[in-house]
């Protein structure tokens, strides 16, 4: 097991390097004006200004030289200071966000992380449970209902579902508002007496002794979590059901029944662990998707995460910002994938012995 994990860990830097090469390659398709945002804040307005920036920051150097400088930064030929360098945490300047891309991610990611953490539990637990139940009651009324639920959920556009729940639970009933928190809570959170230890306001509220803030933030999470959960349940339910049905048809399960074991023991101890292996993959991708920022959900609910920020940047053609997000998301993907691989090894001994 240790060897397996070490091997996976050794792959991480190589995968990250691959991501950087891919992103850098995409950067080369941009015009020098767009690429200048890696080093300067303002759009060069004249040809002379653009030529100056190209020379100053080596935007016409050979690609491998540019790549190196993009990784580690370069010396500004005028000021003598080191500028740029993604390994130094400099992802360029976001003209849409009016701040460095790294700062924008730092500002927005905690909201996305919080939404992801509160969503992943309901999505996986409920989705898997529904799928197992549907498989165990194969062709029964629950199974039929679950399949209809799955088709409807899969067919519903996120945008439409989100607006529907917003209209019902917020506009009509006034229960769950959009945004991240109420105005009074924002006044508390942004005051000097409130310390944002984690950036996750449901936790920070408790750590600051403000349960009311935590509950308010939780109230604002309900609708986005419901929207994300419903749409992901549809897929998770189907995959779990299929996997469970296949497992329940295996010979060893038949043998377990023949031995006289109770059905609950057959399902929970023998069938379920094996059925969850493909589900683990899907669950991992669901987590990655959530951490990347769910654009439409964040936009509909005016939730200030990285998804909505990336969407705004894309619509304004702020390509450096978009690619900065892509790089960040790529890193999350690599790391999360590692977690999924380790989880595989834990669930399935055949994997770690291979």
């Amino acid at each position, binding site marked *: 097991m240790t060897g397996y994990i070490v091997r996976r860990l050794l792959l991480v830097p190589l995968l990250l390097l691959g991501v950087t090469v891919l992103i850098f390659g995409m950067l080369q398709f941009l015009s020098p004006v767009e690429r200048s945002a890696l080093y300067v804040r303002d759009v060069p307005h004249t040809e002379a200004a653009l030529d100056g920036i190209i020379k100053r920051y080596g935007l016409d150097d050979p690609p491998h030289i540019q790549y190196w400088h993009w990784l580690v930064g370069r010396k500004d030929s005028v000021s003598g200071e080191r500028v740029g360098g993604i390994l130094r945490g400099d992802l360029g300047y976001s003209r849409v966000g009016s*701040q460095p891309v790294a700062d924008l991610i730092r500002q927005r990611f905690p909201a996305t992380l919080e939404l992801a953490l509160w969503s992943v539990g309901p999505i996986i637990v409920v989705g898997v449970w529904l799928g197992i139940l549907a498989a165990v009651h194969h062709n029964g009324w629950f199974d039929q209902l679950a399949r209809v639920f799955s088709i409807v959920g899969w067919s519903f556009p996120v945008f439409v579902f989100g607006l529907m729940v917003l209209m019902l639970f917020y506009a009509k009933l006034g229960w769950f*508002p959009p945004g991240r928190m109420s105005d009074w809570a*924002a006044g508390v959170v942004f005051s000097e007496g409130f310390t944002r230890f984690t950036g996750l306001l449901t936790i920070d509220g408790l750590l600051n002794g403000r349960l009311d803030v935590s509950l308010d933030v939780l109230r604002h999470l309900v609708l986005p979590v419901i929207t994300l959960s419903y749409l992901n349940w549809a897929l998770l339910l189907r995959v779990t059901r299929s996997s469970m049905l296949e497992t329940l048809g295996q010979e060893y399960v038949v043998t377990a029944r023949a031995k006289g074991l109770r059905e609950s023991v057959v399902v929970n101890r023998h069938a379920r662990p094996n059925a969850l292996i493909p589900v683990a993959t899907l669950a991992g991708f669901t987590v990655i998707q959530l951490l990347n920022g769910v654009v439409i959900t964040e936009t509909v609910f*005016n939730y200030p995460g990285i998804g909505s920020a990336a969407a705004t940047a894309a619509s304004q*053609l702020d390509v450096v910002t978009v690619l900065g997000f892509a790089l960040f998301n790529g890193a999350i993907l690599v790391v999360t994938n590692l977690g999924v691989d380790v989880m595989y090894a834990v669930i399935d001994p055949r994997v770690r012995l291979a």
Partner: protein
Amino acid sequence: MRVQRTSIVGLLAVGGLLLSACGAGAGTPIVQTVVGGTPMVVTATPPPAATFKSNDPATLLVAHFGEPETLDPALDYENIGGETLLNIYETLVFYDKESAVEFVPQLATGWQVSQDSLTYTFTIRQGVVFHNGDPMTPEDVAYSFQRGLLQGGTASPQWLLTEPLFGVGIDDISLLVDREGGLYDEPEKLQAADPAALRVACERVKAAVVADTAAGTVTFHLAQAWGPFLATLAQTWGSVMDKKWVTENGGWDGSCDTWAKHYAITSEDDPFTSITNGTGPFRLERWEKGQEQVLVRFDDYWRTEPAWQGGPTGPARLERVVIKKVEEWGTRFAMLQAGDVDLADVNRDVVSQVDPMVGEWCHFDLERNEYAPCEATGDAPLRLSMGAPRSDRADVFFVFSINNPEGGNPLIGSGRLDGNGIPPDFFADLHIRRAFNYCFDWETFITDALQGEAVQSVGIPVEGMIGYEPDGPRYTYDPAKCEQEFRNSTLVSADGKPLWEVGFRMQLAYNVGNSIRQTVAEILAEDISQVNPKFQVEVVGLPWAAFLRAQRARTLPVFITGWIEDVHDPHNWYVPYLVGTYGRRQVIPEAAKAELQALIDAGVTETDPAKRAAIYHDLNQAVYALTPGILLAPPNNRQYEQRWVHGWYFNPLWGDLHYYYYPMYKD
């Protein structure tokens, strides 16, 4: 026995009352026989009038689709930032409530204009403090204008001040250093210019705006008489900043040795993009970029006398204003329905969704030039104020010389008159420009895109200002004349075939999300292709950044864009349309431009209204003869608000895009 009878009669009376309440409408008289036999008329109690009360009357909640670019009043030149600045900073004079052309004292207590209209002397109000407690002095006033002028840059509104102070055509401070215009928006080149020239430019600025601390005045020395000068000072670029605070926070220190370092600063590098320190009724508590701005009441606000009759005094009634950025219309709509915002941006294409929520209608009386008393029509939660003519408009601009870098501009197809494209000088042909005008259906545009709430423009200026001639020359939708003009075109293909026979293809771009401009493009495309099926106009939507880039690069053959006036004066319309912002991008031929420039210069420097009107009459004739674009129709305003909000009023310069919070309050 008598008691029993009385009880029975009484019970019958009560029962009758109850039964009648089920059937009777409000106010229906009911005759009942009660104890003693005396008939009495009982009127059913009418239901109480609906009251509208906010959960938080101390806080005004606004939902805009965007957010400011910067909060530096010397640099900001867009309407969302302008709204915040309007409430945080103040100017020497301010609008007399709804008027865009009459002014009341604000940070000045009064002013005098010399006989020759070249000198304006303002007496500066005493006892005013900035939000950080610093007292405001005449030196702060003079410094604020000097700083703005020297900071300059073509992205800023400073051209509105450099022209009156240094001469018509001087639209940036860099022209005082290099008259040829070689230093426009080139801070590094300007810093490398001759130090003596830099010093001279700075000293000219300081001589143009002079503070006299002893007398308590600030004097402006103009290069020529300037009709709209007071109107120019009333806008946010005339805001007064605290010199000490600005200097401490990295701004210009007032020295002529250092001004060049701050020239053409951008919002990204400007230290005052996100921090403020004004004298206004509100101060900025915080700005969470991408989310919201929060303004809080300034309790030491100086105003003890109302600016206009019935106007507010003292600290604002509202304690807080929260301006949220909510890009998605569905979310803004839900917030309006839930009562979680008091004011929200409502696009024209969704008014049919919002109108059912209106329970109180306020119509503008054009004859009296004011709003009539509002009519309540039910219990719906919103109030709609509509019908006032706005001072902004979207129009169509032809590009006389389209950029076609290496023949690869997809918007003009092949780049030749071969049926599959248009040549770069397509719109240099007057017949083509006239044809496009005759092919535009204004009635359909006004009905479909503006809900019938607009009137076709006549000439560039808007209604109510000098230069507007309701009976002036204008185009009308006339497919027959459109066809005639296309046939009269002198353009021919390489093999000598006329335009009508060869046909053409081009793309007409609008910025995605703007339904009005999309409708304009679609109407034009449809009407032109109906005249001749060989004329193909394709409508394409571009993201705003790409649209703006293409416009500036002159690759768009036609651009549809809007103008919100800076000052209510025809000069602020003619300049950008003909020789400034848009005129430059159209590449209007030099000869025509020279003729227009001469008339524009004559008009703005003339102080006699009748003579000015005569000059603008000639200018209107020249514009009609040139036909550089298609003038559309300024929409009337539509202002939606929750019925517990009060105090909003309409000023044409703000329309329904800007809110001045000081007089506003909530139930």
